[in-house]
């Protein structure tokens, strides 16, 4: 239900960043969402479409990278993806492992195009 707020924050960040790139328009924004971030990506896409529709950001694409939960072993420093809540280190079998990622809710990148450049789906000038 809070995905609308998240979508608004993403759009706000796009506007702020886009203002720094005169003569361009933002075409794609990339975000990272961890599996522990409690964000539903379908709901986020729905909200993002709703708030950009019939605005200058209508053609702005949203790219979502889903990030799994990762742990680092405190004994052998091996890093691994946690599946099915199994926190045991696959390399040395230690149970002393720490979560190092998986709760991301981050902006990764913004792609901007110069005005006049053809957009995706049309003939490229490049």
């Amino acid at each position, binding site marked *: *239900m*809070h995905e609308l707020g998240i979508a608004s*924050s993403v759009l706000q960040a796009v506007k702020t960043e886009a203002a720094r790139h005169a003569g361009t328009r933002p075409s794609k924004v*990339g*975000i990272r969402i961890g599996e522990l971030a409690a964000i539903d990506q379908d709901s986020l896409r729905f909200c993002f479409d709703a708030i950009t529709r019939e605005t200058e950001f209508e053609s702005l694409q949203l790219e979502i990278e889903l990030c799994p939960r990762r742990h680092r072993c405190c004994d052998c420093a091996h890093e691994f993806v946690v599946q099915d809540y199994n926190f045991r280190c696959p390399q040395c079998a230690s149970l002393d492992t720490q979560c190092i990622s998986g709760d991301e809710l*981050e*902006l990764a990148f*913004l792609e901007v195009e110069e005005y006049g450049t053809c957009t995706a789906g049309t003939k490229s000038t490049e």
Partner: protein
Amino acid sequence: MERVPLEQKVLSENDRVAAKLREKFQAHGIFCLNLISSPGSGKTSLLERTLESFSPRERVAVLTGDIQTENDAIRLRRFHFPVKQITTGGTCHLDARMIEKHLADWRLEDIDLLLIENVGNLVCPSSYDLGETAKVVVLSVPEGEDKPLKYPSIFFKSDLLVLNKIDLLPYVPFDIHAAADNARRIHPGIEIVKVSCLNRSGLHEWLMWLEQKRRAAKVVHQAVS
């Protein structure tokens, strides 16, 4: 086409305000709790039992969030500590700005324990940092022991799990060991206390935990000041 790296939190504005609040809390030696659960798990009841255990000299204040009504604040004001209701008017969580706004006319010098009761919701509040020292998640017996697996985020981010309504254990199929195991599968280091706000069992452990954390916050405060 040019790709610009952004590398910032989506909620960076909320996080900025939360960091400011956290700094203020630390500067004043305030231990701040963000209490989160589904609606009806007993957050307000836990606060009632907590406030009634304090002597009137305790420097405690409460912010309580709901979508509508002043009902919770009315319940909590009976104990004569400062209480403010935050009605979000539809928003399903509290955010750092709401906390900042509602604290504006309180003297932080007069507080060393700030209890924030979030809007009843196991999902959204977990994304919004309020500047708290710790998050506490409340799970009640009738909700079922698989809640931690269904809503991992908040169990992952909480320091303490309060298992409430244990007086109902004889009447409902709830495996309390499975509930604790599930919470530890998500967050191996999570602490757990089992309480009943109705018959008051287990409340001593909860109050001990609170007291310990409060003292620790004070020690940090004295060490830096």
